[in-house]
């Protein structure tokens, strides 16, 4: 399998390699005057560079696909090994064809383009708590460990040379060896990440090794630069002050790099605070500013890796809170894609570069000596440092951890790029160093990478045990943190917990206030986050294993009127506001129906759920600034519904038993509504005949147009700007005349259109009354969903309702304030225009609160804002009696978001 892939793949680069030679052939014709308009011109050289880059990435990606075709291979061999081998083969082929080595891993390319994405990815997604919990150990290994490795390796190699074990043609003094030691000693983040991602050691171990590989960059850079300049000056000219400067530069480079990173993290967080109206550039900002941090640090010759790491680490909390959910996803995937691309290309290029024998000069003594020393001193260093660290660590690192840490000291592309950067005139032994570095990198990545998995298994290293977070754990963890901070206070020891507590208070008081949108800050809470994520997960699994839940009996609730969560909060509040009269009235509607009705209801729901639902029609979206909803969003919508249901049920069990049956406001968003020119697609509802003098249903349309300004801040977080929300309170959600059942049913576009849970009225089917013959569908996007023939009817109904909205109301909104109404007289006439458009449908809004939280949860924090509009617009609820008769809906429409 693999070999077949390798045979197949070289075709591409070969084409590239062959093509590079074409410009020389074309140069002839170029000089001549153009023979006229050419129908077809071959302009390879104009696109050569980007084309080759694209081809390389494509080859690398295809190679990845091929590798992963076989699970067996990838489970045994780390991807990085395969890529290096592939690179070797490709390089060999290029060499054979082109007679010279093309495509090296250029240090410039590597440091400016390939490394940043990887470091950003790892910094941004670094588990910060874990990182800081182990910061002491990480710093020790990164600083002391790297210094130790560099000096011991360098000195030992020099000793080896003095002992005559290195051939005399390797012209290098102590300083050269120290320089070589400094570049070969650093553990490489790319290699570590590539290998350890597939070996699931426990988190502490991983964060220590990986954190070390990231933070040691500062030390490596300093050592490398200091040694390099010493070598260039010549050892005779180095003065004592230069050594001091070298030490000082360690601090400058590391702290400076970190500072640059933090400054950019601050800027980034601050910028994303104000992107509310231009959501689309949010992901871009993240990448731009992080990259700017990298380049700035590089420019000031500070530690760029440290800068990006700190930038990612520092900004994440605030950025994630500020940007929209979609942007969050975009950032995540783009980052992962870029990092994985860069990693792939790096390893492949490493393999290819190794083929270039012109840069090589082999010396067995040097190579073997280096291999031995880096392994030996790494192990020794780890053991010594761990011993010292364990005096201070609460949880000591045991022997097995130390073995893995010693063995996991992989060297990689950073070392290679640094060695290529050496100046041959100043460092005469450069070729030997290059060869040695290549061998070391290959050895660590391939041999150690291959064996570390079996080793971990054999040593029974504690694996990472991922378990799903639970609310209890999250809560108790917070409790423990506070307890420990308090105990440290009592003991009077200002340790780690004390300072973390301090930092958190500072963060809460000032930083978060400054860097997060007010709305984001309000809802940003870790416990809440866990709660929210749990709900989402439950909802997803709920939907996954039972899409049928919507269909029928499973959902039939006890005699309780159903409400959804949003309804719950807003409606209860409404009721509180408007007194209990409403309650009483509503309860009336709940009175028991005959068994027959009940059966009908069940049957209806069965049909509704089980019948074929026509697919949604797609609407072309040409806006560049808004992304049309996709399957994911639809899924989210369903999730939201499920959530509402769950909450509804729990709510019922826990809370008041007030019946307001029909009020089932449901937040709906109609996106694109404005574009469509439909001002308020509203839901029309069939209504149940009510038993007592209440046989009329009122259409209540609450239109709250964009409360954006006041509420945007609170609500902006995860909504798209172009959506409105419609809350629908309806008396009956499904009222079909028997004759119309089939016809209307097929209008239901999708399961989500079916109300999540039958209202009381739904259960007791009211269609016997012969007048509430309106099919009720849920469709916000009426224009999209409603079949064409019904479109007109729908539009009519809308216009009728709109026109009706102005006349004074004889029937006050049932929901808001319900003095029992003497509307009996008007009851019989059903307005023609309305009855004629039974297909007006409801749909769940295309893009629901999907993002940050599904509505059910968001409902909880929204109510405050939600309510005001609802109350404030009571007047809008007035409708002419005619329409009121057959309808009963409250529509909530907010310009932008929930």
């Amino acid at each position: 399998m693999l070999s077949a892939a390798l045979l197949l793949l070289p075709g591409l680069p070969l084409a590239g390699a062959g093509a590079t030679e074409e410009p020389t052939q074309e140069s002839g014709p170029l000089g001549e005057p153009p023979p006229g308009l050419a129908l077809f011109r071959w302009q390879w050289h104009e696109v050569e560079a980007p084309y080759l880059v694209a081809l390389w990435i494509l080859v690398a990606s295809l190679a990845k696909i091929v590798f992963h075709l076989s699970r067996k291979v990838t489970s045994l061999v780390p991807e990085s090994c395969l890529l290096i081998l592939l690179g070797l083969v490709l390089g060999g082929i290029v060499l054979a064809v082109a007679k010279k080595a093309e495509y090296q891993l250029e240090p410039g390319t590597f440091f400016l383009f390939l490394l940043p994405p990887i470091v950003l990815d790892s910094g941004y997604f670094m588990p910060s708590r874990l990182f800081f919990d182990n910061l002491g150990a990480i710093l020790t290994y990164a600083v002391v460990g790297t210094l130790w490795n560099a000096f011991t390796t360098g000195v030992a190699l020099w000793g080896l040379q003095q002992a005559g074990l290195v051939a005399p043609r390797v012209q290098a003094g102590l300083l050269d060896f120290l320089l070589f030691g400094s570049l070969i000693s650093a553990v490489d983040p790319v290699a570590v990440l590539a290998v350890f991602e597939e070996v699931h050691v426990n988190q502490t171990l991983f964060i220590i090794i990986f954190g070390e590989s990231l933070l040691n960059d500062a030390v490596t850079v300093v050592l490398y630069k200091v040694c390099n300049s010493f070598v260039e000056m010549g050892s005779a000219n180095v003065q004592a002050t230069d050594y001091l400067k070298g030490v000082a530069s360690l601090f400058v480079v590391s702290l400076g790099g970190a500072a640059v990173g933090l400054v950019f993290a601050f800027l980034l967080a601050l910028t994303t605070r104000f992107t509310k109206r231009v959501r689309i550039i949010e992901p871009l900002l993240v990448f731009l500013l992080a990259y700017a941090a990298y380049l700035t640090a590089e420019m000031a010759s500070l530690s760029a890796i440290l800068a990006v790491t700190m930038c990612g680490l520092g900004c994440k909390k605030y950025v994630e809170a500020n940007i929209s959910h979609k942007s969050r996803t975009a950032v995540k995937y783009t980052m992962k894609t870029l990092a994985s691309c860069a990693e792939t290309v790096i390893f492949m290029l490493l393999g290819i570069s190794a083929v270039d024998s012109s840069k090589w000069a082999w010396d067995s003594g040097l190579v073997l000596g280096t291999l031995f020393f880096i392994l030996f001193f790494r192990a020794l260093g780890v053991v010594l440092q761990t011993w010292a660290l364990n005096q201070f660590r609460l949880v000591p690192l045991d022997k097995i951890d130390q073995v893995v840490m010693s063995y996991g000291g992989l060297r990689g592309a950073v070392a290679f790029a640094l060695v290529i950067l050496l100046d041959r005139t100043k460092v005469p032994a450069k070729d030997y160093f290059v060869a040695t570095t290549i061998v070391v990198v290959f050895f660590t990545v391939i041999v150690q990478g291959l064996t570390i998995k079996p080793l971990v298994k054999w040593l029974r290293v504690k694996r990472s045990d991922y378990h799903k977070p639970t609310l209890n754990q999250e809560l108790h963890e917070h409790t423990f943190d506070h307890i420990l901070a308090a105990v440290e206070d009592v003991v009077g020891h200002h340790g780690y917990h004390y300072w973390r507590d301090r930092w958190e208070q500072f963060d809460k008081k000032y930083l978060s206030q400054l860097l997060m949108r007010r709305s984001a800050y309000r809802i940003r809470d870790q416990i809440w986050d866990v709660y929210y994520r749990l709900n989402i997960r439950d909802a997803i699994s709920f939907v996954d294993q039972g899409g049928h839940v919507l269909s029928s009996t499973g959902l039939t609730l006890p005699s309780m009127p159903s409400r959804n969560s949003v309804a719950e909060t807003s409606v209860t509040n409404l009721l509180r506001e408007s007194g209990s009269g409403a309650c009483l009235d509503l309860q009336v509607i709940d009175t028991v129906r005959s068994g027959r009705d009940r059966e009908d209801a069940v049957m209806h729901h069965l049909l509704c759920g089980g019948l074929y639902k026509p697919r949604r029609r797609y609407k072309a979206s040409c806006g560049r600034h808004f992304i049309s909803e996709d399957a994911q969003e639809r899924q989210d919508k369903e999730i939201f519904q499920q959530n509402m249901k769950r909450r509804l049920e729990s709510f019922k069990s826990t809370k008041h038993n007030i019946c307001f049956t029909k009020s089932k406001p449901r937040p709906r968003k109609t996106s694109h509504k404005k574009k469509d020119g439909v001002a308020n697609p509203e839901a029309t509802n069939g209504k149940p005949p009510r038993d007592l003098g209440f046989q009329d249903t009122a259409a209540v349309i609450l239109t709250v147009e964009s409360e954006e300004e006041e509420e945007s801040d609170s609500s902006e977080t995860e909504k798209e700007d172009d959506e409105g929300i419609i809350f629908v309170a309806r008396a009956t959600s499904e009222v079909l005349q028997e004759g119309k059942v089939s016809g209307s049913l097929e209008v239901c576009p999708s399961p989500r259109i079916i109300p999540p849970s039958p209202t009381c009225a739904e259960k007791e089917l009211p269609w016997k009354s012969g007048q509430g013959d309106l099919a009720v569908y849920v469709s916000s996007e009426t224009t999209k969903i409603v079949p064409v023939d019904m479109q007109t009817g729908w539009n009519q109904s809308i216009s009728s309702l709109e026109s009706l909205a102005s006349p004074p109301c004889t029937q006050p909104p049932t929901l808001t304030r319900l003095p029992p109404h003497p509307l009996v007289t008007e009851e019989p006439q059903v307005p023609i225009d309305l009855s004629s458009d039974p297909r007006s449908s409801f749909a769940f809004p295309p893009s629901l609160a999907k993002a940050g939280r599904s509505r059910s949860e968001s409902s909880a924090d929204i109510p405050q804002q939600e309510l005001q509009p609802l109350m404030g617009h009571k007047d809008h609820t007035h409708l002419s009696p005619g329409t009121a008769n057959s309808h009963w809906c409250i529509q909530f429409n907010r310009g932008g978001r929930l």
Partner: protein
Amino acid sequence: GSRSSHIALIPDVEHIRRETGFSQASLLRLYHRFQALDRDEKGFLSRLDLQQIGALAVNPLGDRIIDSFFPNGSQRLYFAGFARVLAYFRPIDEEDATLRDPKQPEPLNSRMNKLRFAFQLYDLDRDGKISRNEMLQVLRLMVGVQVTDEQLESITDRTVQEADEDGDGAVSFLEFTKSLEKMNIEQKMSIRILK
């Protein structure tokens, strides 16, 4: 207190040492701290003494933790009690576990005792159960102001439901430990300095 004080000056030191398992150095250190907190040199600590520790005042659980130093409504905290509470946070030594005589009661810093300490911070009425209301109060302390009451209630419901196995709507100590069985309590409830 004076720095020159010796371990022998601590009243009843042997007994305390056996009960808490603190090393002599730690005990001495704690005793110094105890004396420093005891401003009036009255020989015991009052609630006020602890409340005056600045950072404790802003700790959301500060009051409850102070309360746990004063069991059974007592108003005076002597050094023995002081050390006993802090002993819950002593890291667990491997030797401790192996050397310990099984007949003896569990050391104060055992996993169970650490959990019990945390549990009683929740369980205000000491009925051995964290009721929904008690959970709500803790959550209110923890999540701060930015979460609305409704959200808080639903979080509470879910938290209780999650841990509640027998369906009594409250979290017993057993259920509490079960909900935390995956967590490394030994590590999370220990402070290195309290050897």
